[in-house]
């Protein structure tokens, strides 16, 4: 219960009466909705939804970056793309600001929204909730217990100094590239820099959204330098500079490295799934290291939204509501690796022992905060695109860390003016 309480410390005191409404099953029966989400979904579960509601689902899965780009194009053109669409924490400022998605306050049952209240805070803009959280994502580490034991390491490092020492031990024990950090010029490749910046005790921006990562003493600077040094020192494989997060996870699951530095909490079940992993039973979660003890992390929840151009909004709302039900969210967690968001779901998982790595999750959550204190700004996409290219150039050695961050700060400052 303590874990559930920590996962969702926020109040769940919303009214249990349904101020929102789900359409009656008869009015949506026979409709076909398109769902655009960047993660796999077993057909068996979709068939269950169809059996329960009579709504057919065309489930379209593309990579995260591709999904983001498709949504931007379709929304800008005001054309239909899906009835239920991915909504990342980073979309909130841009998508809500542009009016691309429907507020869910009157489309989902109040009980469902209340259950999601804590994690849905990332999707609130102007007092309206634009998505229903399905992936309670935050960054932490995952490591290979067997490799650690072979190197004589008994616990996951709590500080960067300990991490450096352990990496040397792992290398000495025969792990050629102990660390796995994606550094490609993609969203997944820039996330580790964000995480390292927070873990080293800093922020990317101050309260006025002015960049604070470009001076050599700043945490952002040290974080990018640390990544560049990890490449130079052979802590990560040379190919890390072109590695995306999904490939980094696959390589870790294949037993190619000992530590997956920045990953999500839902990837532990994936590591223990024999159909997806060759390190079943060997993976464990670890806290993000820091300067003097475990470092700060940040939440990056993902949700389900209904674009304003959706054709079957009631059926879409029914699908979202179905996904959020504890039984379904847990089944999806086990196959897709998305840690559920609903308070009641987490409570049920804890009570039935289905939450893997619960103790570490509980501890990590005490270090989790938002990347942007006031929510993702409207210009986040532009900042992220700039950061992806420049940080990638720095870790490849094509430009100095100083040059990359100075350019990035200049661009960010221009956007915030």
């Amino acid at each position, binding site marked *: 219960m303590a874990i559930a309480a920590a996962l969702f410390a926020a109040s769940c005191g919303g009214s249990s009466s349904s101020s929102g409404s789900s359409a009656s099953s008869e009015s949506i029966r026979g409709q076909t909705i398109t769902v655009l989400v960047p993660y796999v979904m077993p057909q068996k579960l979709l068939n269950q939804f169809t059996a329960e509601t009579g709504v057919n689902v065309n489930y379209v899965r593309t990579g995260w970056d591709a999904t983001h780009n498709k949504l931007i194009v379709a929304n800008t053109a005001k054309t239909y793309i899906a009835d239920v669409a991915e909504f990342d924490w980073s979309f909130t400022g841009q998508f809500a600001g542009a009016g691309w998605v429907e507020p869910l306050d009157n489309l989902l049952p109040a009980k469902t929204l209340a259950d999601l209240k804590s994690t849905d805070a990332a999707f609130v803009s102007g007092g309206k909730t634009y998505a229903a959280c399905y992936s309670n994502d935050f960054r932490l580490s995952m490591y290979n217990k067997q490799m650690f034991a072979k190197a004589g390491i008994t616990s996951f490092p709590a500080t960067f100094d300990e991490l450096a020492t352990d990496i040397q031990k792992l290398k000495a024990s025969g792990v050629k590239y102990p660390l796995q950090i994606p550094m490609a010029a993609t969203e997944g490749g820039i996330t580790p820099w964000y995480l390292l910046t927070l873990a080293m005790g800093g922020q990317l921006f101050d309260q006025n959204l002015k960049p604070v990562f470009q001076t050599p003493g700043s945490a952002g600077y040290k974080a990018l330098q640390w990544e560049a040094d990890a490449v130079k020192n052979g802590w990560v494989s040379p*190919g890390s500079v*072109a590695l995306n997060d999904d490939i980094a996870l696959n390589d870790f699951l294949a037993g190619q490295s000992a530590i997956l530095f920045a990953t999500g909490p839902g990837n532990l079940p994936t590591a223990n799934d024999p159909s997806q992993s060759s390190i079943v039973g060997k993976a464990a979660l670890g806290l993000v290291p820091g300067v003097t003890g475990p470092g700060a992390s940040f939440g990056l929840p993902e949700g389900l939204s209904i674009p304003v151009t959706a054709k079957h909004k009631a059926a879409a709302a029914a699908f979202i509501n179905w996904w959020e039900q504890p039984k379904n969210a847990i089944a999806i967690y086990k196959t897709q690796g998305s840690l559920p968001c609903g308070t009641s779901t987490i409570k049920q998982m804890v009570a039935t022992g289905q939450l893997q790595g619960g103790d570490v999750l509980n501890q990590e959550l005490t270090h989790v905060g938002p990347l942007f204190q006031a929510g993702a700004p409207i210009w986040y996409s532009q900042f992220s695109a700039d950061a992806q290219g*420049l940080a990638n150039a720095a870790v490849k050695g094509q430009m100095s860390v100083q040059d990359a961050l100075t350019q990035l700060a200049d661009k960010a400052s221009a956007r915030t003016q």
Partner: protein
Amino acid sequence: MPGRWNREGDRSARETQILGWILVVPAMAAVSALILYPLVKGFQQSIQSGGILFGELPGYVGTRNYRDVLNDPTSRDAMRHTLEYVLLAVSLELVLGIFVAVTLHRVFRGRGFVLAVLILPWALPSVVSGVLWRRVFDPDNGLLNSVLLHLHIINQPHVWLASGRGAIVYITLVHVWGVLPLISLIFLAGLQSVPDEVYSASAVDGAGPWRQFRYITLPLLRPSMAIALTVGTLLAISIFDEIYVLNGTALNTRSILIQVYNTTFVEADFAHGTALAFVLAAVTAVLGGFYALALRRSTV
């Protein structure tokens, strides 16, 4: 009688003219709907502000977006990279294309098989060839590093697509691998139109293979060369798939089209994205016109 013939001739000419218009109108309508309308809309967008997403009021901003993209260091780097892709790719395609065509022009055993194999890279979609080559260049598990490590030519895996110039050369090679068959076939068709008698006559006059190539083959291949130059340049200037699959949107290999994609679809900055696309279109149109003129001169 002559008057009647004239009248009938006039009517026939008029009917032919009307029929011509009837046949052309559907194509013109399709072109207008699919090309002209998006072109006009796109141009409109390129001279408008970014709107609410960029904290601006919607409205026309004149040439501001064009000035912005021409002054942006990332866009300028992308232009420089594109120029490098074009120069390197076209040079390689012309030289290798002529070499392959001259080789295949000779009758030898297995020529048909070689021709079929030659077509294969061209038949593959550029995304597929990009994926294939990614397996070759992959720093951790790639074929190239495996072979070189096995042969002790390198001591540790090399990240082929990390360096600036090197990465552009490797991506260009992948592009040339896909386009070379087409260029070779253009030259081969040109060679086959040269009468054998010309070579026989020159041989009687004492011309050796090199002199025949220098003074007969090359001059008579000028029309083919103009076509190959046009096709090669247009394909190289619009290089996208190979770069995106092999190195994503990394700055060191970004072409103008990748920059257009990134600006438009990743940053959602349609105003600057379309402005950059129009800059590229203008350059391509000028080059296309220049080549068309050259082709006309070489064939008249």
